[in-house]
């Protein structure tokens, strides 16, 4: 009788120990994300992060533990974005931070990120001011999106390569039309600086850009929408390369007015942060060139991009429409790869592993870490040059991801 009691007690004890151990093993690895959920960029980025986490968990999790994604909306407001970091750190006690977009929001988050010093893999925020605010000492901080100055330089590299490959293409005379707000003014300053460097035979545009002129316009997004005066200036200047830096609301009316006044540059380039939905369906869009990190046409040349596209559509019943979708997916997958490589959640080991991790991303390019001007851990350094052809965005540079060749010259 005593023996059977003893056996029962021992069985209970054993069950209790096993149960607690399995409970410990199942404690999830928590990843805290901050994205603006009311905006398509943040919503699709979050959808893509959820997809990546689902795939990781289906494959058995990380280090034998499931992964939990906790998302907080930044609402595109600096104080809300900073409060989100505080919540993730102190209430949810996440192991890692990921996200997000908007340099203004990120600048407000940086004091909190510096306080907790958790391993952070940040997808967006391109302003060099954010890089300055993070500083050179933050070895725990990984930034994926190219910084603003890297983007400008990469266009120069891209155009140099395109001109070399297609000798009939000339970009000696460049005209930049920029909206008079912060975004456009910054673009103008960046191009003016690159033009000055090019005139001294230095910088990314050296050897291809000889003359540069800029003119501002009031964006339709800010109550403007009449571009004729600016377009007349551009027409008189007769540029080889015409670029406009404004907002999506400017894309279609500017094209229409350019056609109306008979302005037909050889290269018509748009550089807004986002394009109007279904811009490609507009017949005027044909041969318009744009800058970006990703295009759906990458599915034709990249298995990872194709896998991402199909899985995203299957899970969320919508197509990815912004590069922040594949970037959000990359954000999680890259971090997961680093954790797996480290074999532990110990901070120094994860940092060291991430520094040497290479991840073939659905953006086409392979993500690997190198120092940028200030920070130690910068991911992507280049944008892509894309072109609308027959209603679809195609990659024309870098050539290794090109889905088609450039159509030149631009014509109505």
């Amino acid at each position, binding site marked *: 009788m005593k023996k059977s009691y003893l056996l029962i007690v021992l069985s209970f004890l054993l069950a209790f120990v096993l149960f607690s151990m399995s409970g410990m093993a199942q404690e999830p690895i928590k990843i805290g994300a901050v994205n603006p959920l009311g905006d398509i960029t943040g919503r699709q980025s979050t959808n893509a992060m959820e997809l990546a986490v689902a795939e990781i968990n289906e494959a058995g999790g990380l280090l034998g533990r499931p992964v939990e994604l906790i998302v907080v909306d930044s609402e595109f407001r600096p104080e809300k974005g900073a409060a989100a970091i*505080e919540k993730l750190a102190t209430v949810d006690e996440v192991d890692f931070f990921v996200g997000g977009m908007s340099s203004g929001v990120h*600048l407000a988050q940086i*004091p909190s990120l*510096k306080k907790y010093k958790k391993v952070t893999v940040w997808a967006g925020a391109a302003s060099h001011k954010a890089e300055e605010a993070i500083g050179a000492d933050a070895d725990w901080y990984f930034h994926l999106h190219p910084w603003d100055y890297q983007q400008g330089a990469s266009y120069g590299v891209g155009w140099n390569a395109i001109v070399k490959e297609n000798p009939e293409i000339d970009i000696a005379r460049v005209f930049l039309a920029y909206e008079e707000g*912060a975004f456009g*003014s910054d673009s103008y300053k960046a191009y003016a600086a690159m033009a000055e460097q090019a005139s001294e035979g230095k910088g990314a545009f050296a050897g291809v850009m000889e003359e540069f002129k800029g003119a501002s316009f009031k964006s339709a997004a800010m109550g403007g929408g009449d571009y004729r005066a600016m377009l007349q200036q551009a027409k008189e200047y007769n540029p080889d390369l015409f670029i406009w830096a404004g907002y999506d609301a400017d894309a279609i009316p500017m094209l229409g007015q350019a056609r109306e006044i008979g302005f037909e540059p050889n290269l018509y380039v748009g550089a807004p942060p986002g394009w109007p939905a279904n811009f490609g369906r507009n017949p005027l869009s044909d041969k318009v060139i744009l800058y970006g990190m990703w295009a759906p046409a990458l599915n034709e040349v990249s298995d990872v991009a194709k896998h991402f596209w199909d899985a995203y559509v299957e899970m969320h019943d919508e197509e990815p429409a912004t590069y922040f979708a594949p970037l959000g997916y990359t954000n999680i997958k890259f971090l997961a790869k680093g954790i797996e490589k480290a074999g532990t959640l110990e901070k120094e080991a994860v940092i060291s592993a991430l520094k040497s991790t290479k991840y073939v991303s659905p953006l086409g390019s392979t993500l690997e870490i190198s120092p940028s001007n200030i920070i130690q851990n910068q991911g992507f350094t280049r944008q892509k040059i894309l072109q609308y052809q027959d209603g679809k965005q195609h990659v024309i540079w870098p050539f290794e991801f090109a889905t088609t060749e450039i159509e030149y010259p631009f014509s109505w």
Partner: protein
Amino acid sequence: MNKKAILIILTALAVVLPFFTGAYVLSIFISIFVFLSLSLSWDMMLRTGQLSFGTAGFFGIGAYASALAVANLGLNPILSIILGGLFSAIIAFALGFVVLRLREIYFAITTLALTHVFSVIIRNLSDITGGASGTILPNAIFNGDPKLIYWAILLITFMVIGISEMFKRTKIRFAINSIRNDETTAKSSGIDVFKYLLLVFVITSAIQGVIGAFYAQQFAFVNPESTFSLNFLLLPIAMALVGGIYTTSGPIIGALILGLISEYLKLLIPYGHLVVYGVIIVLVVLFLPEGIFKSVKKLFASKDNVGSDINAQS
């Protein structure tokens, strides 16, 4: 329990809150106090009958004055907050001679335009202000310590509440109410309308400048897009309307309710919480046009009357 005892308890609770909660809750209350102070300052100007849309503008120039003084002159961040308020007050004083000649919609539109003008000037003085990219500071105030930051904004909020109450309890109130009700009558009663309008405009702008300076020091950066955001105009107005205008309690109640609801809804409905938040504001404005504070006060007053009527009948 009388009103005074309740106020003392609430004040004590607000002061000791950091001992019982973490950085996240503190960050929510810090944000609530920022918008509460802006809301009260907007309401104080409204009490003169002038609808000002310049809140975000004076917030922004206070923020810039403070940030640039710290970044370029090495000024102490606490002193720079005072400087932010002073700078906004000086600008408001100078502009007041022009804009306070205007009334009603003309005053409202001009003050709204001021925000845009300030932002354009800041963008174009890029050598000093950092232009469109803005300016960053080496450190957040108090090295980002949430408790100290909380106590600092709490102190500022108490001061703003004090100024608001001063407007309600001192002789200024008669002048302000009189100007709002009928300016001609106020003038014929010997009230110097312009002097009082200028005084309120300068004081409320100084408050907005102090809050902007505090915000810049809290997050250690300024840039035109974030610092002159219309959020610093529209949210304070919504808070005052929800709580109830022409009172000190109204904007306080509005800021607390909307601030807490906004955060709670975000956790409850991650996608679409802003829609629900907007609907709540619209419903309150539609069905409680006097705001929550006055509506609740009226409800209790009518209940008391019913109670006293019943007692009288029995």
